[in-house]
């Protein structure tokens, strides 16, 4: 309607103009008829003028014309791609692989390392630790935390947390749940407010105060209480005692597994060296991290003076909460992944650029013809841009698909302790990076050919014909292939080293037998158990468990294999007892009971195991309690001598002299890498321990026995469930999950790098054969041997691959020291690897160039010569 009015207005304007013109011509003396004819002639094509005016008035004309051109260019670009399906396919595949790899890695690193912690102003949050006289960071003890919090002047507030696994009862079978003890300041410090009920009160956080309250996590509230809002005020039983639920907190993003929170209520009278708490603080405005660190160190110094018996020369350190939560491994992995993936995108760019360049050189002629027919440079550049965009859009779409699939695989394979891996997804910033990567790849890759074509060489292209390529273009392409091979060598070398290191890690002699071994824990709390009844419980449990068909042996220990908690102490030969603690030998220790060594599969090398005779009679002070030491400690304390019957002084508690009754093999049951720490074992009876772990040796499929074991434990005491039973093999897998993951990632990278290098050299060789058709045709026509032609083409390819390989090896030698910390039992300049990888790359180069060389040999000289 509006358009109609515009049309009418233009028609009226034109009509008026013509009638004025006629009037003027009549006034100049023409007859009416002459004037009408002359006006029509002068005015020209009335319809066309009206049309042009209408297009401008409506604003459509320019766009429809441009859209038309773009449509033509897109169609042309698609036709071009379809005409050379192999090259187009390679280009697209390279682009998609490069962009997807970048996007996947970025989205993972983004979710896990880069995205902010789910707390209010998380960058102002610090983690505070105590440091040993040797400077190693440790957790904080309850009395020390109370003092740090009372004396500090750097933080708005401090809070501490401790992890625990209370037994939840009263809702079905008793079971162990993940829980935390937290300060009443904890949630407000982090900026987490209860979605139901209230936070802890200050008086609930006082030792001996009204601490029988609990907060539920949102997840537990939904899962266990069906999101019932009336849950606040009701009672739940944790470790047998009633606690009133006061609220529900949304803690899922920070601590996904934790179900219940209890007040910390720190006990000011427990040992100051019983370090179990993690402390955090929120910086006051204007206070720097360095100032906070000084503040904490000063307090540590005061405590060291005030309590020399427990905190002598202990210091304090602070770090950003994110560094503590994310951990050095992830930060390292983040850098470790982003680095190669950046190179990777570069490689993909190089490949795409190479393929485009190769095509561009061939198309110089086409461009020349089009330029000769009057297409402006702008027009040609626009067409090339459209071709690039078509490639980018196709590549981008395929990359999104591949990225989504790849992310799913990464999430399935990644180590379980990557806290926020599950959150990795294709969100806005990830899409931005992906799009930017794709666009960058195409622009960077397309710039060279576009320059080559538009920068005046169009006409020379026409003159030269396709037989002669521009020298700059060729040198550039060749350089790209050399760079690709260098990069491929570097990546494949790293991947191979990590793989070889991982294989050694997997085959390392553990000194015990993880397969068929099950572990779980039992909580035997002080208010229900004495040391004697704990022992009774474990003895009865052993009888019940060993009666289960398929169970061969059961033992208990203070710490199961590969647990995060590895108790340490100091020992020395009693006949050479040093004066100072530093001169004692640091050892790892375990308190064990039952048939521990048989269950774990640790062989006895000399002497005997603990027996009933080692059990102390009540109130009977045994002079020299029995201990068993491992081979490593025996060799360290009594090299070349018999340790049996000798005395060893155990520094804590109280420096008792113990008699060595047996020597067992050393077991790598704390970590797989490195040498195991020397180990000393004592009978469980001598130690106070309320949560022993139980090891069960089974004959067959360990996992199948878990339900039976759970029932056996519960039937002995309905309030004592088996806490998180699992096969030890799974723990082993998790311990080496990081090396495995790094290896897998780099292996995938290695294969992609290989493929890219292969595609690169194939593209360049095939292209050079196509370009030299005439020359080769002449040679063949003049009677050149097929072998000679073949060799000539192969030599061309090798001239690029070999320097690339050499450069890659040199670069790797420089870079590999960064890899050293990740390698186990293999040198970063491992000669086998350094022989294997370059030869493989050379083989890949030969294989990739073989096909085009073959084609060159089969070239029919006649068709080659008449093709131009």
């Amino acid at each position, binding site marked *: 309607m509006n358009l109609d009015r515009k049309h009418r207005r233009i028609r009226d304007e034109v009509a*008026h103009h013509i009638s004025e013109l006629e009037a003027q011509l009549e006034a100049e003396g023409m007859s009416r008829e002459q004037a009408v004819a002359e006006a029509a002639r*002068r005015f020209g094509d009335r319809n066309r003028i009206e049309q042009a005016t209408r297009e*401008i008035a409506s604003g459509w004309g320019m766009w429809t014309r441009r859209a038309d051109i773009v449509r033509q260019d897109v169609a042309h670009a698609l036709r071009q791609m379809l005409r050379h399906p192999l090259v187009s396919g390679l280009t697209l595949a390279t682009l998609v692989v490069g962009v997807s790899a970048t996007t996947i890695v970025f989205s993972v690193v983004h979710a896990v390392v880069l995205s902010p912690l789910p707390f209010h102003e998380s960058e102002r949050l610090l983690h505070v630790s105590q440091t040993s006289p040797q400077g190693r960071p440790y957790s904080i003890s309850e009395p020390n935390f109370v003092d740090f919090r009372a004396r500090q002047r750097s933080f708005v507030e401090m809070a501490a947390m401790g992890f625990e696994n209370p037994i939840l009862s009263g809702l079905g079978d008793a079971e162990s749940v993940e829980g935390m003890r937290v300060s009443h300041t904890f949630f407000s410090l982090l900026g987490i407010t209860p979605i139901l009920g209230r936070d802890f009160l200050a008086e609930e956080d006082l030792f001996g105060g009204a601490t029988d309250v609990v907060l539920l996590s949102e997840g537990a509230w939904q899962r266990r209480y069906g999101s019932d809002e009336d849950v606040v005020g009701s009672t739940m039983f944790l470790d047998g005692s009633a606690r009133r639920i006061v609220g529900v907190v949304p803690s899922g993003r920070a601590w996904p597994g934790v179900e219940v929170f209890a007040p910390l209520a720190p006990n000011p009278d427990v040992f100051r060296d019983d370090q179990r708490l993690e402390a955090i603080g929120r910086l006051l405005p204007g206070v720097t991290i360095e100032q906070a660190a000084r503040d904490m160190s000063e307090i540590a110094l005061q405590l060291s003076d005030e309590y020399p018996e427990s905190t002598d020369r202990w210091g304090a350190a602070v770090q950003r909460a994110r560094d503590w939560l994310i951990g050095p491994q992830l930060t390292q992995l983040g850098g470790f992944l982003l680095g190669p993936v950046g190179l990777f995108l570069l490689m993909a760019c190089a490949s795409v650029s190479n393929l485009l360049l190769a095509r561009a050189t061939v198309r110089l002629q086409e461009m020349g013809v089009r330029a000769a027919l009057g297409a402006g440079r702008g027009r040609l550049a626009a067409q090339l841009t459209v071709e690039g965009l078509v490639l980018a859009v196709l590549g981008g779409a395929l990359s999104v698909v591949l990225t989504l699939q790849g992310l799913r695989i990464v999430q399935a394979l990644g180590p379980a302790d990557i806290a926020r891996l599950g959150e990795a997804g294709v969100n806005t910033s990830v899409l931005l990076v992906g799009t930017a990567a794709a666009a960058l790849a195409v622009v960077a890759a397309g710039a060279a050919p576009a320059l080559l074509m538009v920068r005046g060489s169009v006409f020379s292209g026409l003159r030269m014909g396709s037989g002669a390529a521009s020298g700059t273009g060729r040198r550039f392409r060749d350089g790209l292939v050399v760079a690709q091979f260098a990069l491929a060598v570097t990546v494949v070398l790293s991947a191979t080293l990590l793989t070889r290191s991982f294989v050694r890690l997997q085959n390392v002699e553990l000194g015990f037998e993880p397969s068929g071994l099950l572990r779980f824990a039992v909580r035997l709390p002080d208010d229900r158990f004495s040391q004697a009844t704990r022992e009774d419980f474990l003895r009865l449990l052993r009888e019940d468990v060993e009666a289960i068909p398929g169970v061969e042996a059961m033992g208990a220990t203070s710490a199961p294999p590969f647990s995060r908690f590895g108790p340490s102490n100091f020992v020395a030969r009693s006949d050479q007892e040093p004066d100072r603690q530093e001169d004692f030998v640091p050892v790892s220790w375990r308190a064990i009971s039952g048939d521990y060594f048989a269950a774990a599969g640790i062989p006895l090398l000399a002497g005997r195991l603990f027996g009933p005779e080692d059990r102390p009679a009540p109130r009977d002070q045994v002079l020299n309690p029995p201990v068993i030491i491992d081979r490593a400690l025996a060799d360290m304390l009594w090299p070349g001598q018999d340790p049996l019957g000798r005395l060893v002084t155990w520094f804590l508690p109280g420096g008792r002299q113990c008699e060595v009754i047996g020597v067992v093999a050393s077991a790598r049951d704390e970590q797989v890498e490195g040498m195991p720490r020397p180990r000393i074992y004592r009978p469980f009876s001598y130690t106070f321990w309320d949560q022993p772990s139980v090891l069960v040796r089974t004959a067959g499929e360990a996992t199948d026995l878990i339900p039976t074991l759970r029932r056996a434990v519960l039937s002995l005491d309905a309030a004592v469930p088996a806490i998180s039973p699992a096969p030890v093999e799974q723990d082993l897998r998790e311990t080496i999950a990081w090396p495995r993951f790094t290896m897998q990632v780099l292996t995938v990278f290695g294969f992609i790098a290989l493929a890219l290098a292969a595609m690169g050299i194939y593209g360049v060789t095939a292209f050079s054969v196509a370009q030299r058709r005439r020359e080769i045709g002449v040679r063949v026509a003049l009677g050149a041997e097929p072998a000679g032609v073949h060799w000539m083409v192969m030599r061309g390819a090798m001239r690029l691959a070999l320097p690339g390989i050499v450069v890659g090896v040199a670069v790797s030698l420089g870079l590999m020291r960064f890899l050293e910390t990740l390698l186990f039992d293999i040198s970063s300049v491992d000669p086998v690897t350094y022989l294997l990888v370059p030869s493989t790359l050379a083989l890949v180069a030969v294989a990739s160039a073989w096909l085009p060389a073959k084609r060159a040999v089969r070239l029919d000289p006649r068709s080659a010569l008449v093709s131009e």
Partner: protein
Amino acid sequence: MGERVDLVPGTLGMLVMKAVSAESLHGFGIARWIESVTGDRLTVEEGALYPALHRLEKRGWLSSDWQRTEHGRRARYYQLTRDGRRELDALRARWEGSAAAVRQVLDAEARA
């Protein structure tokens, strides 16, 4: 009457705006005015005039309305808007600047 000259490309808009800067004119009147002030040396192509008028109006430099001519015909009259006046001043300054520069070059003593 001098020799006929071609319109310098890109100047039609400026000339049209100048034509309607004093009083509002219809398309035919604009063409006539330009021809008369140049002594018929410069003619305006109708094929270019109307698209130009609509483009300038779309940019907000001209406004238009229907009026009666002195002969009593209904015609579309164009006048310069405030934005158009500013644009005309800018175009004019630029034109005179470049014309002066060209003249300086042409008048300069050529050095051997």
